[in-house]
């Protein structure tokens, strides 16, 4: 379905004593995502989860290696071409516009303008309030509202592969369960290959496969039970207290 082959994404360090040195954010990944399965990607902050997702969508350029989607090399394709090939992407921090409504985004995502069909879509993504359709997707929306809209526009694409980058950010506790169910339903009813980046146990539980990323590599691939020892091991996390004299010490306050 989706194959990552010796995939690298590198940047040049600009600060400190490492200035000018090349750093691999994604460090030689090889993996094949099976069709119709639900994958959860987790891992510490800065480990490369979002970078990987953006490489798949074509938002970040691949430094080396290849991405194949349904047997076709898509490494050189644009975002638009990948979208047309059947990949959809939910952003962690969705864009806000001026003068563009939820209805506009849904129409762009589907080419549908008929009210009845748009209402069907709303039902499918679990949005009951019809007035939501004419909400402006602007800075006035709450964090939770814009995430629901983001999710809806992704599902509306009817993607073969759906990537969700932290869909639960800003979502209240009562909505996470239904959101997990929605993505599971899309997986089973539409055979959508689903990749969710999340730290939330509800998504990790729902996944067929848990992938743990650390320093640009998969540190673990398997079911949630097998991942638990690593998830509870704090040493994997790069959040360390600063110590005097430590050259690479970084503070995350």
């Amino acid at each position, binding site marked *: 379905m989706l194959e990552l082959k010796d995939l690298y994404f590198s940047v040049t360090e600009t600060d400190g004593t490492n200035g000018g040195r090349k750093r691999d954010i994604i460090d030689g990944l090889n993996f094949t995502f099976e069709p119709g399965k639900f994958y959860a990607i987790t891992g510490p902050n800065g480990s490369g989860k979002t970078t990987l997702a953006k490489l798949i*969508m074509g*938002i970040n350029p691949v430094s080396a290696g290849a991405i194949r989607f349904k047997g076709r090399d898509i490494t050189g394709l*644009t*975002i*638009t071409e990948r*979208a*047309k090939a059947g990949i*959809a*992407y939910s*952003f962690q*921090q*969705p*864009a*806000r*516009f*001026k*003068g*563009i409504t939820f209805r*506009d*985004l849904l129409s*762009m*995502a589907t080419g549908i303008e008929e009210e009845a069909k748009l209402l069907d879509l709303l039902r499918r993504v679990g949005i009951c309030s019809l007035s939501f359709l004419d909400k402006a997707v602007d800075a006035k929306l709450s964090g939770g509202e814009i995430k629901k809209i983001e999710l809806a*526009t992704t599902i509306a*694409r009817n993607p073969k592969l759906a990537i969700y980058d932290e869909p639960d950010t800003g979502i209240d506790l009562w909505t996470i369960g239904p959101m997990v169910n929605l993505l599971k339903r899309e997986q089973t009813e539409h055979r959508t290959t689903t990749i969710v980046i999340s730290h939330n146990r509800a998504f990790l539980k729902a996944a067929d496969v848990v992938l743990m990323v650390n320093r640009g590599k998969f540190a673990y691939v398997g079911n949630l039970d097998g991942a638990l020892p690593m998830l509870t091991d704090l040493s994997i996390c790069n959040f360390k207290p600063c110590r005097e004299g430590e050259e690479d010490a970084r503070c995350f306050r």
Partner: protein
Amino acid sequence: MLDALDKGLLKAVADLEDIPEGAYNIRKNGRLLSRATSANINIESNEEGTGIMVTIAPGTVKESVHIPVILSQAGLYDVVYNTFIVGAASDVTIIAGCGIHCGGPAPEGHEGIHEFRVGKGARVKYIEKHYATGPGSGKRTLNPTTKVFLAENAQAEMELTQIGGVDDANRLNEATLGPGSMLLITERVMTDGDQKAVSRNEIVLAGDNSRSNMVSRSVIKGNSRQNFYATMVARAKCFGHIECDAIIMDNGANETIPALKAEHPDAELSHEASIGKIAGDQLTKLMSLGLTYEETVNRIIQGFLR
């Protein structure tokens, strides 16, 4: 009476397919083409012969006046001074606009000065569109001026749009607000090529509890240039806000200067201004929905100028 060209221009600036219902005054190439009055709305040429006087009777509700101007005569520079007396407690819509069709190398232009005297408790919506087209190389100039005087508790909403094709525009909006009155201005201007547009706005909040919000949206393409200046002067307990956003593309240049002047201790004034390219996250989002780069840019600009 209206040829195909006239109809095209009327459609662009006044959204009219033909001669409108109700009161109207259509001016073509510096002369009156057609006029109609209604029981409550009178239109007559002013004494100096420089324009028209539109008088709306007090209490007139849900009526509209169309006063489009169309130009298609080479070398003509048309200047007109129109006055609108909006009677107390009325609620009307005034649709103005100027369309230029330039067929040759000679310049064409229009300068419209619109003065509004809005009576006590009256509400007026003013919609003005400017548009120029045609194969000619002559310079198309539109220099509109609006002067607004709002009496106690009057409300005016103004939508000022320059949709394209105008080479040179110098706009001046002046307003004086009485007690409890409200003024909303939304200005949308798109320029391209070597076009230039300047907008100057001076809003005086003179009466207690007067309110004003000025929104400016600019899209500057090609080698074009837009300058936007807005000043709000508070002379009473009042509320005023200026919001100006500009999207620059290609080699577009923009200067945006909002200014606030408080001459009263209970004045509340604020502004926000931004100039920049289309945000990267907006482009990425729409392309991830399957739109091409060009389609994405068009949709974002359409929304921005909506």
